[in-house]
Every structure is written in structure tokens, then in C-alpha cells.
């Protein structure tokens, strides 16, 4: 009931809100998908993905190029971009998910950095326009964009909810707690990890495609920027790792904090962000939802 009322309210927003508020909500929703997508894989399996920007950038590039160079309609370009990154992620997942722990995190950073450099070289210039970037106009109204991303965010949270309360979700959590033990219990850990990885790639990739349509521009340093990896992680940590609504709560709070900090302290904004990350890990590792569970505001167990 509450969810239905919230949805009706969110759907009706473009009819009376100003463009400023719609833009802000678009940002919140896009980052909700990024954070939930990161959480879906990393929060559940414990494999820290430091290459979220790679999902976002590759999919953003694919869809932007389809719109800019091949005059595709955005409605078709977005899912193709997301499918493209999902298919590549299958290959990458099969190869990289053999690597454990910290090494996996670093190899994802290396993959992102390598792809960023590669997209800027003269060899890929005929395809990616090199370092000049790709400016384009998709001809989509702000309201339509808002509704699309709202639908995506809703579906993402729904998928996360379904997964965490399913046997598949439990398998992923078993991998996080003890991968060897999970394997001994007969869980096909590699397959579970790859499925979660690819699903995460698809959802964040779709959001990435929408993100760059909304920005009307993509270039290597912009599409693969470390912020696109960092910000969703901070949001998830703040809301609560491994929870369903944590990433959405984190995304909402942080977008508002961003708005205030950006306006007041443009130059120090990133430094404050880094400081918050340190303090979160040291003093608040369980996040908002974890804290509420500890205090007994939320129930500690959930029916599956």
C-alpha cells in the first residue's frame, strides 16, 4: 500500500515539479540503480567490484555511439548498450571471477583504466571518436527520461528484493561468508558469481546508457571516471551493504548532500567525500539499515 502510494507520487512528479527537482530526482534514481547494481554483486558475494565505471562506460559508449553515429532511437539504443556490456561481462566474469579478494578488485580497476586508455587511442578513433568524445542529442524530453529511469529503478529494487529472498541470494551470501564451505555444500559458486556479475552489469549498464543520454555527451575520461565507481560504493556503505533498500537510501541522502556541498564547497567537495568514506569504514561499517537493525527499530530477521 505504502509502496503504491509512493509510486503514484513519484510518477506524478513531472506534472507539477520544476525542472530542477526532476533533474535532481533523475540523478537520485540513476545512482540508486548504480548502487543497487553494485550491491547486488559485491554486497552479496563479497567480491568488491572496483570496476563499476567499466559497466557504465562501456554501455554508455555503445548506446551513445548508436544514437550519435547510426541515428538509432534511444528506446532501442539503451537495451542494446546494456546487452552489449552483459555479453562482454560473461566473458570477463568467466576469466576474472577466478581471481579472489583484493586481486579481483585490482584487476577490475586495471580493466577500467585499460579500457579508458584504449578508447582514447588513435586505433579505436574511427569507432569511439578518440579523446574528442561523442556529443549527441537523443531528442528525449526530461519527463520521459524521468519515467524511464523511475521504471528502471523500480525494477532494479524489485529484482534485488526477489534475489535476496531467494535461494539464489542465499547461495551468493554463502559465497561471501565462506566460499570453500559453500562449494563443499554443493553450490556451483562460479556459476552463481557469474550470474550475479552479469545481472549487475546489465542493470548498471542500462542506467549508464540513460545517464549519458541525459548528459548528451560521453568521452573516455568522463565515461570511465573513478567517481562512477566510488560514489555508488559510498552510497551503498552508507545505506547498508547487502540490504535491499540501503543503496536507495544512500543514493537519496548522498545526492542531497552532494547538492549542498557542491553549491557551498565546490573545491573541497571530493575531499570531504573521501573523508566521509574513511569515517564510514572506521565508525559506521554497518550502514543506516544495519544500525537500525542493531537498535531494534527494524526487525533483525526476514521471512524468505
Amino acid at each position: 500500500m505504502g509502496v503504491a502510494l509512493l509510486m503514484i507520487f513519484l510518477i506524478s512528479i513531472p506534472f507539477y515539479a520544476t525542472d530542477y527537482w526532476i533533474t535532481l530526482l533523475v540523478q537520485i534514481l540513476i545512482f540508486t540503480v548504480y548502487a543497487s547494481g553494485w550491491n547486488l554483486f559485491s554486497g552479496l558475494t563479497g567480491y568488491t567490484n572496483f570496476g563499476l565505471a567499466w559497466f557504465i562506460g562501456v554501455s554508455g559508449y555503445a548506446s551513445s555511439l548508436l544514437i550519435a553515429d547510426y541515428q538509432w532511437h534511444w528506446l532501442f539504443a539503451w537495451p542494446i548498450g546494456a546487452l552489449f556490456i552483459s555479453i562482454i561481462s560473461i566473458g570477463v566474469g568467466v576469466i576474472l571471477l577466478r581471481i579472489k579478494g583484493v586481486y579481483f578488485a585490482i584487476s577490475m580497476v586495471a580493466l577500467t583504466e585499460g579500457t579508458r586508455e584504449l578508447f582514447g587511442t588513435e586505433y579505436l578513433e574511427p569507432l569511439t571518436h578518440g579523446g574528442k568524445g561523442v556529443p549527441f542529442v537523443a531528442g528525449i524530453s526530461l519527463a520521459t527520461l524521468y519515467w524511464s529511469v523511475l521504471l528502471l529503478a523500480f525494477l532494479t529494487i524489485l529484482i534485488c528484493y526477489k534475489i535476496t529472498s531467494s535461494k539464489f541470494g542465499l547461495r551468493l551470501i554463502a559465497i561471501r561468508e565462506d566460499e570453500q564451505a559453500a562449494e563443499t555444500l554443493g553450490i556451483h559458486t562460479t556459476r552463481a558469481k557469474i550470474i550475479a556479475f552479469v545481472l549487475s552489469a546489465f542493470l548498471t549498464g542500462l542506467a549508464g546508457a540513460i545517464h549519458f543520454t541525459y548528459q548528451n555527451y560521453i568521452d573516455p575520461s568522463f565515461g570511465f571516471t573513478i567517481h562512477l565507481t566510488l560514489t555508488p560504493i559510498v552510497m551503498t556503505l552508507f545505506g547498508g551493504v547487502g540490504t535491499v533498500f540501503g543503496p536507495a537510501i544512500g543514493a537519496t541522502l548522498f545526492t542531497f548532500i552532494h547538492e549542498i556541498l557542491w553549491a557551498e564547497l565546490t573545491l573541497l567537495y571530493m575531499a570531504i567525500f573521501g573523508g566521509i568514506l574513511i569515517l564510514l569504514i572506521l565508525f559506521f561499517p554497518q550502514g543506516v539499515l544495519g544500525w537500525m537493525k542493531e537498535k531494534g527499530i527494524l526487525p533483525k530477521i526476514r521471512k524468505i
Partner: protein
Amino acid sequence: MGKVTLRLENMGNFIETLIRGLMLGSVYALVGMGLTLVWGVVGIVNIAHGEFVMLGAYFAFWSFSLLHLNPLLSVVLAIPVFFFSGTVIHKRVTERLTKAPELSALILTFGMSILIWNLAQFFWTNTYRSVPYLTGNFPFFGLVFAKSKTLSFFLALSITAALFVFLKYSKMGKGIRATSQNPEVALVCGINTMKMRAVTFGMGIALAGAAGAIVSLQWVIFPQMGASYVSKAFAIVVLGGLGNIQGALAGGLIIGVLESLVTQYWSAKMAQIIPSVTLLLILLFRPTGLFKR
């Protein structure tokens, strides 16, 4: 006859590129050895490692431009200053993470890196700076080398030698190696492992700071420069095998030579991809590193 001289010139060019690569690699090795030391002994993957290289470079820059200090002196001074800062950071912040999962440390040092380079950007702006101390080239058996790079090479090698001697023969060095091999047994044998970890963290930071001061002699410095060093350092650590100091030295030289060769014979842009590609290939095909311990 013409062909032969041409070939000799090519050969000279090749050797020059190779030696330039070794000079470059010696500095990378310093950064990589610091990272591998901290990772192997303290168990913390310091993503902010490159930021200490940047701070070291600014340390040399400011002591040169404000205090007119000889950059060679600031390389020497950087070691105790960064060592002390490193131990303080470890006691205040990272020591709390020894029991926490490895990934907490990863995210925390990630935050530290963002914090440091953004503060540097805020206070020192994005201006590219350099230390105009030793400029110009000198001929050597028909080859030409930059004076500053040659000096850097010898500085980096001396620091590396000092590190090896310290770890091998000093009492504390033995304690550090024991802590790295088996912390529990080391503790039982009466080694203060907590102190060893703090000292090692300080040494890692000191190596990064000294490398930064050396870097300022030959390249431009700016707040975001740490990122390229840390990605090279990760490739070096993985090449050499985790916690393997000699391996890191060899890895640093390999990365330096590769970068120099690719820049000379292919393109400077492709040289930027080397650390990422090396890292991915090694992790996939030889995850324990190139060398057996």
C-alpha cells in the same frame, strides 16, 4: 657502408632506450617495494600509496622553492619525515583494520587517496610544477642521457640497497621479515608485531615519499599524479609476487623498460596501457608472480 652505420645508430638508440627504461624502472621499483612491503607485512592494500609519491614530490618542490633546499637533501629528508607520518597514520587509522576484512582496508585507503589528492588540489591548485635543479644532458660513449635521470637512478639504487641491507641484517629488519612470514610465531618468539607493523607501514610511506622527491627532479608534478604511480605499483607488486621485495625490484625494472620501449617504438598512449595489461595477464596466468620465493 651506409647501411652499417644506420644499423649502429639503431643499436645505439635501442641501448639508450633500454637504459632510459632501467632508470625509469628504478624509481617505479621504489614505489612498488613500498607497496609490497606494506601489503605483505601489514596486510593492508594501500590504494593511497601513489598519493604519498605525490606528497613526496611536493615536499621536494616546496623545500626547493620556499627554502631553497637542495633537492638531493630533500630526498634524504623525505625519508624520516614520511616514515614518521606513516607510523602516525598507521597507529591512528590503519591499525584498527588489522582484524577487519581485507576489503574494508581497500575502501578506506581508497577514501584516503581521494581525500589527499583533493586536499592537494585545493591548497596547491592544478598548476603543473617542476624543480629546475639539474637540467641538460651529458654524452656517454656516444649515447646521450639526461643528467637528472641519471642522478635519480643512482639515488633510487642507493635507497634500494639501504633497504635490502636493513631488512637482511638489522635486528628490526629480521623482526619485520619474521612478522611477514608468521605473525603468531613471531609474537610467541617475543617480537612486538604491532610495532613491526607500524614500522613497516612507515617504511612503505617513506619509500613512496622518497620516490616522489626523486620524481620531482625529472618530471612535472601535479595533484593527480599519484594515480599513474599506484597503478604501476600494483602491476609491479603482482609481477614480483606479493610481499617479495626482490621481485618488486625486478618488476619495477621490467615495467620501466617495457614502458620506455613501447614509448620509443610504438606510441606514448599505448605505453599507458602497459601496467593494466601486465597486471591482468599476470593475475590470469601466473597469479603468484614471476619469481618463486
